[in-house]
């Protein structure tokens, strides 16, 4: 009994933090319609800043009330100011860009923030001080419960109340609510949107910073908090309804309690398996989100969003057809690659193998995002399942490598079949977030199913068959398979099936009006993209000899996104160039420049602001104007 009560209270504690972050995210989305990927980074910044601010205020002595609370307030305020600066310098320039570019811009901020935190605070976990006066525990039903957690439980409703007052009792709040309901009409009444957007962003950032800062006595400041927090916040906002603050509160409670319940229940045995619920919180969380999205596509308290006018430039250009010159260039590149082993050293061969594998991965993601028009935040799921499928078939089921490398993509295709069925029922940001949720499910299953997958250690000893074990032999295998797969993908794009997918993307209405079953085609696109990503994953596993859950983590999905967007969504050669550039940057530049991620972030921001069509897109449009 007492443990259930305690778990319930734990749920409330985490709900408070979730709410602070999600409320800011929701507020910003409601008014600017930008999904701020960097919100988790703002949270992380909050916790680091609080650590330092309290340290400075406390000097060498003990942590006084003034130092602690002053430090937290300063940290949150600084994060708020950072948010305002972000809005003015980056986001304001991309409000009219396609959704995907807005996401990429905020994602670039994530990269910048990550390196900033590493640079300023170093990689070690930083443990903050306890809150003065709240360091003890109270006894609840015979068990101790931290006082500070009780305080946090109160913070959630308190902030909800304050936000409610701010939104309902001030003119600023009134204008925010008005503009959230009808942005265009608000402008027609003379409401200055720039100020409103900047201030909403500042408040949202402040809340995220506060959420982070308040965690300082509970958990150490760590440089990977940004991803964990943003995924949770996405789930909460989607479940609660985009743009609804009470919805965010309700969803935070729901998710917080679901998590606590999983931990409270512990291990469950069923069908001879022992499932450890505490380890699968993320799975349960994502299942809740998927269920809510299927039955209430706009979330618990959300409503269908008013359609904003088409951003300029969102229209897709004609797909390039290979000119004789391009075909020659392609043949030259393949021929060049084929003779590389003759003069390349071991190190560059490994790099080229990586580039080839990621070129296939990026091409499969591009197939989904470009011709099929569905942005996926979780493409690593298929890459990773392909890798794990192959590795498990090889290590556990004892299949030979040649068969295992086929089993990988099959597993990935089956996953795409299941995930895709749900995803094609949604569109836009919602679809993207659902793909992310499914990827997180896949990740946490792999990460936490120790007995099968080896957990965080992964699987080692995944080596190719003897006849392929040499670097050069494996290089040729990768070259042939990836080259063929990319060729097949390209052929599909220009086949009737590919035409149908592009037709569904260009105008779902028109496509249905000529008798195309839009969802079925899109579902099939998931299968194709998932299968090819799985092949890339399987090849990756055997090229490294070992795999870890990293292969299906968010970072991997994001690498794919960056490759595709770097090269340009509207071109077929874009993802290849993007994969080459990013892989090369990661391998080479990362060795010489400590903060290469920040550099990449800056490059992305410049690209998104200056060339929304990507590198290759930019080149080809320049070529077109030149002609």
């Amino acid at each position, binding site marked *: 009994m007492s443990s259930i009560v305690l778990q319930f209270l734990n749920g409330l504690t985490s709900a408070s933090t979730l709410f602070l972050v999600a409320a800011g995210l929701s507020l910003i989305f409601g008014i600017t319609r930008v999904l701020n990927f960097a919100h988790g980074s703002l949270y992380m910044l909050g916790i680091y800043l609080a650590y330092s601010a309290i340290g400075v205020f406390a000097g060498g002595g003990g942590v006084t009330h003034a130092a602690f609370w002053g430090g937290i307030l300063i940290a949150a305020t600084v994060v708020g100011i950072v948010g305002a600066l972000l809005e003015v310098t980056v986001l304001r320039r991309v409000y009219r860009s396609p959704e995907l570019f807005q996401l990429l811009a905020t994602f670039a901020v994530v990269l910048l923030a990550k390196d900033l935190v590493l640079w300023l605070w170093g990689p070690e976990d930083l443990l903050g001080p306890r809150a003065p006066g709240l360091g003890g525990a109270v006894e609840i039903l015979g068990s101790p419960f931290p006082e500070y957690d009780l305080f946090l439980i109160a913070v959630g409703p308190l902030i909800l109340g304050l936000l409610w007052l701010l939104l309902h009792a001030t*003119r600023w709040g009134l204008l925010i609510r008005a503009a959230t309901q009808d942005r265009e009409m608000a402008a027609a*009444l003379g409401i200055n949107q720039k100020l409103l957007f900047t201030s909403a962003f500042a408040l949202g950032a402040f809340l995220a910073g506060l959420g982070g800062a308040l965690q300082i006595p509970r958990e150490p400041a760590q440089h990977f908090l940004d991803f964990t927090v943003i995924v949770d916040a996405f789930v909460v906002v989607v479940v609660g309804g985009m743009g609804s603050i009470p919805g965010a509160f309700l969803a935070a409670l729901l998710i917080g309690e679901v998590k606590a319940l999983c931990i409270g229940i512990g291990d469950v045995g069923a069908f001879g398996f022992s499932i450890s619920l505490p380890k699968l919180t993320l799975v349960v969380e994502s299942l809740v989100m998927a269920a809510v999205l299927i039955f209430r596509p706009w979330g618990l308290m959300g409503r269908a969003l008013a359609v904003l006018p088409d951003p300029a430039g969102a229209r897709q250009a004609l797909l390039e057809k290979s000119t004789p010159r391009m075909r020659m260039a392609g043949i030259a590149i393949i021929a060049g690659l084929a003779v590389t082993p003759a003069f390349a050293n071991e190190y560059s061969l490994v790099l080229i193998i990586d580039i080839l594998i990621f070129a296939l991965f990026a091409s499969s993601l591009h197939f989904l995002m470009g011709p099929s028009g569905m942005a996926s935040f979780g493409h690593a799921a298929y890459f990773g399942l392909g890798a794990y499928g192959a590795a498990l078939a090889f290590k556990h089921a004892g299949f030979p490598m040649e068969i295992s490398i086929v089993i990988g993509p099959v597993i990935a295709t089956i996953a795409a079949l299941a995930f895709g069925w749900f995803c094609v029922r949604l569109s836009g940001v919602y679809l993207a977030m659902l793909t992310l949720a499914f990827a997180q499910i896949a990740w946490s299953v792999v990460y936490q199913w120790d007995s099968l997958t080896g957990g965080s250690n992964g699987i080692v000893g995944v080596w190719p068959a003897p006849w392929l074990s040499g670097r050069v032999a494996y290089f040729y295998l990768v070259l042939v398979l990836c080259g063929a797969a990319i060729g097949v993908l390209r052929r599909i794009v220009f086949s009737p099936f590919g035409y149908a997918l592009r037709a569904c993307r260009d105008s779902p209405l028109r496509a249905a009006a000529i008798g195309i079953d839009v969802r079925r085609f899109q579902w099939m696109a998931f299968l194709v993209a998932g299968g090819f990503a799985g092949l890339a994953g399987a090849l990756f596993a055997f090229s490294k000899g070992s795999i870890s859950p990293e292969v299906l983590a968010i970072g991997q999905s994001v690498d794919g996104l960056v490759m595709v967007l770097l090269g340009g969504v509207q071109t077929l050669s874009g993802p290849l160039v993007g994969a080459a550039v990013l892989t090369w940057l990661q391998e080479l530049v990362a060795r010489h420049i400590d903060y290469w991620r920040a550099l990449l972030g800056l490059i992305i921001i410049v690209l998104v602001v200056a060339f929304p069509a990507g590198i290759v897109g930019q080149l080809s449009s320049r070529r077109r104007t030149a002609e």
Partner: protein
Amino acid sequence: MLSIRSISAGYGPARVLFGLSLELRAGEVSVILGRNGAGKSTTLKAVMAMVPLSSGQIWFSGKRIDRCATWEIARAGIGYVAEERRIFPDLSVLENLEAGRRSARGHGSPWSVERIIALLPALGPLGRRRAGTLSGGEQQMLAVARTLMGNPSCILLDEPSEGLAPAVVERLATLVRTLRGEGMAVLLAEQNMRFALAVSDNAHIIEKGGLRFSGTARQLQEHADLSAEYLAL
């Protein structure tokens, strides 16, 4: 006061206006008549920069406004009441009015909630109601009132009589006459000819995105053939 100089505009590749010109003087009520699809709403939206112009200029009080943002145009003194009313449905009636409030720009006595309710007594008892739950007529009155709270010197009304009961239309007519009495310039877009001619000094007929007739309301009434040709069947 408001001068629309041979503007062309449309939505994406679709063209609606083809070189349309109109003038509106201070203290004057003008109506744009035409069947739907003729370009009436688009004209008003073009003034508010809610539809991009492909050519032409718009001037207001001696200032060129066709490059301004919507909110700047509103602050320059043009009020806009949208065709679908577009009140903020989740806000209360009073909050809707508050959202429209802007300080007065010198001329005339400024509008306040009290003055609005004196003019539109029907809104008085509705103050705390959610605007989305109002009837069509009440929403229309609220939409006008909300725009008045911005103290505009010129007001654009897009099909205010659409879907309203005759009695409500009559109240609307009184309201428009009162506004004119206040020295406000009013530009109406209407399909309801009786209402339009009852309140207007001047009338313009547009069809297929171009001007077909411009003159006083009286002239139009005398030319029954014109109205039959462009407005009826």
